[in-house]
């Protein structure tokens, strides 16, 4: 039996296992999933999952994600010191709200090439996108290999796409499928299929490529696309991307100490409800998302994530850090700050970083005085221990 025969029969036999939709059973399982977030059953389920790589954190589960993101409408204006010692107040010398490009450059960025080192791609800057009517472009995820933003068409939740800028050399144009030559902001590009979806790629700087991909133009028949519609939508989005390197990646906390070997791997610049800013930094052994140029950055790739967030009060304090109440278990450390926010150090692997190390990281950290005010934040490149 040759491969073709095997494949043919394999498809047939696998499809014979298709489970018909059972609305009652589906609803029951949905109900369990929704209900589990707030009860102890989830802890056990998640604990097993985390240990084998599902890459989620029990802390996030137990605390109810939604309450975590219910950031206070009015942020406390006081400087919050995590440490008992005087805190380093995040400088606002880079101040001013995050700047949006005033005008999209039709000719393309003349000085678009980012510096891939010192600081690395993932800390030096972030690309920005001009507002595009009909689309929300939010939640930037950044690694040393790529930066990716979500793009959601209005009225189409979970049916959208992404803009991804790869660091110089990270995306080999030869790996892209052949397609229709195009230009984006005056630069060479191609429109074709990538990973089964329409994609528009262009060289935003020397040896550096950006890709817009998404579900726009999708037809009811799965896997089929109206390519003209897809291309039109992607071209509009691509034209709005600004890679002028003028916008720093801002963080609302600063780290004064990290143990040797724990390095920055990824950052997330997102929004909670009501467009409340929210950022996260992830730290690991330096390999996450960088082993293969096209590896996608993921939350779980890191060992430690640090976020400042609305206080959840899900877990009663069991210790103090710098005089502030805190909760510790082998999945992380949460320090309740005076302004009603938490500094959360979460582990993607149980016990991956010791309690003493977490406490020392928190003790040497400082936070921006106004969590909702980006003008008080610090560029990521300056937020790391010196």
């Amino acid at each position, binding site marked *: *039996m*040759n*491969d073709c*025969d*095997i*494949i*043919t*029969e*394999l*498809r*047939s*036999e*696998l*499809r*014979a*296992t*298709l*489970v018909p*939709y059972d*609305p009652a059973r*589906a*609803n029951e*399982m*949905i109900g*369990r*999933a929704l209900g*589990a*977030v707030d009860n102890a059953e*989830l802890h056990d*389920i*998640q604990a097993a*999952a985390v240990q*084998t*790589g*599902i890459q*989620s954190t029990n802390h*996030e589960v137990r605390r109810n*994600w*939604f309450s975590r*993101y219910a950031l206070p409408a009015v942020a406390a204006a006081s400087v919050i010191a995590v440490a008992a010692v005087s805190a380093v107040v995040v400088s606002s010398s880079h101040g001013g709200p995050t700047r949006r490009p005033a005008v999209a450059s039709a000719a393309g960025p003349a000085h678009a090439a980012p510096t891939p080192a010192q600081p690395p791609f993932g800390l030096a800057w972030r690309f920005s996108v001009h507002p595009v009517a009909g689309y929300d472009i939010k*939640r930037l*995820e950044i690694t040393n290999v790529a930066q990716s933003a*979500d793009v959601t068409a209005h009225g189409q*939740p*979970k*049916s959208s796409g992404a803009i991804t800028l790869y660091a110089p050399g990270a995306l080999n144009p030869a790996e892209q499928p052949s397609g229709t030559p195009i230009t984006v902001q005056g630069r060479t590009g191609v429109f074709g*299929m990538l*990973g*089964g979806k329409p994609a528009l790629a262009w060289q935003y700087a020397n040896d550096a490529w950006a890709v817009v991909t998404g579900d726009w133009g999708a037809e009811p*028949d799965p*896997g*089929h*696309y109206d*390519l003209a519609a897809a291309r039109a939508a992607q071209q509009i989005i691509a034209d709005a991307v600004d890679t002028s390197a003028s916008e720093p990646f801002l963080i609302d906390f600063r780290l004064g100490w990290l143990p040797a070997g724990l390095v920055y791997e990824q950052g997330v610049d997102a929004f909670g*409800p009501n467009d409340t800013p929210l950022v996260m930094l992830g730290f690991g052994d330096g390999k996450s998302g960088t082993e*293969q140029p*096209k*590896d996608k950055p*993921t*939350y779980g790739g890191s060992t430690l994530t640090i976020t400042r967030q609305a206080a959840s009060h899900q877990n009663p304090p069991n210790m103090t850090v710098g005089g502030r109440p805190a909760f510790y278990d082998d999945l992380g450390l949460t320090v309740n700050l005076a302004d009603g926010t938490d500094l959360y150090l979460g582990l993607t692997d149980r016990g991956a970083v010791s309690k003493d190390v977490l406490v020392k990281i928190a003790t040497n950290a400082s936070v921006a005085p106004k969590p909702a005010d980006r003008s008080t934040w610090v560029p990521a490149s300056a937020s790391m221990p010196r």
Partner: protein
Amino acid sequence: MNEAEARQEFADFVRVHWSSLMSIGVAVSGSRQEAEDLVQTALTSTYARWQTIRPGEALAYLRRSILNAHITSWRRHRGAELTVGEPVRQSTHDTMATVDDRLSLMPSVQALPRRQRAVVVLRYLCDLSDDEIASTLGTTTSTVRSQAVRGLATLRSTHPGREAAPHPTVSSRRTS
């Protein structure tokens, strides 16, 4: 998005994809009961992170969660792994008539190493591209290809005497 909206969105999403998710579970585990456990675990962990999952990647995340949950199960019950539970249901589709009187490939599929099994299921049940499989499994495209080749080689070696089946056209995705 508030909590109510997120719950509704999650529920709607699951209803749309429930059948395919369960099918993956059955294909990798060989058991409807275990498939429900796998999918339930995946749904629970996914919902807890629903607001952090990128739009457009929720399905891939769920697939990955199911496969990871299966690996968990495999590790816990390594000794019992070779026992295939509920028999695979027979399709009434005409093309299946050709395999009715032959040894099914499914026990061999379920005996494949877990990564190879996952690749085979995602490739030939879900029709994912190698890039999509690599993304789902958190590996590289070349690894996916090599796992698929090894998996097929194993299946071929365990069914050497089977006669060639008819060749129904395997539809590829239309891209234009």
